[in-house]
């Protein structure tokens, strides 16, 4: 089946080139989609506003206009800043975002690289961004940036644990770390003998899903976990000294990472690109898969941003207490129960 499209065998470098180009286009596009749909539109509606209206039809091009505006801004580097680290930080953050996209499956063949340790890889590279954030905070030679960077460090370390522990439950059930295998495990699963819609792990791992959603909210430093960038406390945190294109990098990374995490949540808990009724090995799955995945991502993202627009910010100690005293024990209980049930059944 797959030979149909790939009848023309491509050399490795050609495949790589195509993949790099797709990723290079995909990442900013996803950030744009999330920025426009959620940051501009859904947020406005939830605040009883209409959002941007002037740029393009219904203001849909506003973010492009803003991007063009950022490009025109002066590139300012503080006098006392560590210039090399200061310049490298946004690239590190964006690189971590790009790396997550490597293992996101959009169809049986539509994946940049189906690593055998896919989800582990995703968790590992996503925590690279904290290094970029710390670099930005440290090199800016600004006390607010430093505070923001250190807050981000403490927060991301605290929430990395529940994030990974929540994933472990899914991995135990699927019996694999590979993203494709996790999708197939859900597609081939059955609910109490009824196998019509497979078995989205949302049903068995509802606790894990909850923990995962809270943890990615914190990983993305979005409200109510936005202490690292809290305007009213540390005036923007680690990116306070960044202007123009470098700030755009942080912005892009934030929303592209939101997309990537929503995609991981959709893959782990909602069945990824699998649509009930379509054979996961057929050619059709390659066509319908990306659309199905996109719809599921938008559903998950709506949840993420809904929480973002509803809740006020936590206090720093509340945040740490919540992670260490509630989320991590809960995730451990979840792993124990899942493991026991998988062995028993």
């Amino acid at each position, binding site marked *: 089946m797959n030979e149909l499209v790939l009848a023309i065998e491509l050399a490795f470098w050609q495949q790589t080139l195509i993949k790099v180009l797709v990723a290079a286009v995909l990442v900013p596009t996803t950030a744009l989609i999330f920025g426009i749909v959620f940051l501009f539109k*859904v947020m*406005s*509606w*939830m*605040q*009883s*506003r*209409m959002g941007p*209206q002037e740029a393009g039809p219904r203001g849909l091009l506003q973010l492009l206009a803003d991007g063009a505006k950022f490009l025109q801004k002066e590139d300012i580097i503080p006098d006392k800043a560590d210039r090399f680290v200061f310049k490298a930080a946004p690239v590190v953050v964006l690189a971590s975002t790009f790396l997550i996209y490597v293992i996101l499956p959009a169809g049986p063949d539509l994946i940049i690289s189906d690593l055998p340790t896919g989800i582990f890889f995703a968790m590992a590279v996503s925590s690279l961004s904290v290094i970029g954030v710390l670099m930005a905070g440290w090199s800016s030679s600004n006390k607010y940036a430093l505070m923001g960077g250190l807050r981000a460090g403490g927060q991301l370390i605290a929430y990395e644990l529940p994030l990974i522990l929540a994933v472990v439950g899914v991995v135990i059930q699927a019996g694999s770390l590979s993203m494709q295998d996790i999708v197939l495990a859900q597609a081939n699963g059955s609910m109490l003998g009824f196998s019509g819609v497979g078995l989205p792990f949302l049903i068995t791992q509802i606790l894990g899903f909850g923990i995962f959603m809270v943890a990615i909210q914190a990983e993305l430093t979005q409200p109510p976990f936005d202490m690292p960038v809290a305007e009213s406390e540390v005036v923007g945190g680690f990116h306070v000294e960044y202007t123009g294109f470098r700030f755009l990098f942080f912005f892009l990374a934030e929303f592209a990472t939101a997309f990537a995490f929503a995609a991981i949540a959709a893959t782990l808990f909602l069945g990824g690109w699998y649509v009930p009724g379509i054979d996961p090995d057929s050619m059709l799955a390659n066509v319908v898969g990306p659309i199905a995945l996109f719809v599921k991502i938008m559903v998950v993202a709506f949840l993420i941003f*809904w*929480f973002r*627009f*509803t*809740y006020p910010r936590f206090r720093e100690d509340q945040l740490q207490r919540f992670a260490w005293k509630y989320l991590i024990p809960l995730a451990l209980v979840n792993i124990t129960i899942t493991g026991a049930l998988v062995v028993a059944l």
Partner: protein
Amino acid sequence: MPKVPGMVKGLGVTFRTMVETLKPSGGPATVQYPHEKEEPAARARGVIALHEENCTSCMLCSRECPDWCIYIEAHKTLAPPRRAGGKPRQVNKLDRFAIDYSLCMYCGICVEVCPFDALFWSPEYEFSEVSIADLLHEKQRLGEWMDTVPEFEPYEAGSEAKGRKVPR
């Protein structure tokens, strides 16, 4: 009725607001300003209008103005007598009356203090300018605002004082 946790209630509020905003019968709480105008309250303080004929150049408004943004220049002249055969009256002829709206803070003290009903509030608010110097409204422009001054509301029944009238 079981108690709904506040966190869930909060989610309900934002979701309901979103649905309300998107419903054709609902709509946003905001006004899409350049396309549709906001209807200011009838007594809104937009801009100050001058009824030139009533001004006696008494300078009260100018002196009471906290920002000193009212400029008045006048000279003395003789007006024809009120009755035939009477003596010509000495009056102040207004040469210049200007309000610098780049300084004005819209406190309304000048309107309150005017003893001759020469200054009035108008609800008009669209008089922004590209150049800040153009915010200095001379008496001709201030007189034009008089057309936009709404009538005073009548006093409530049983009031001893007569209702005020806007001179046209």
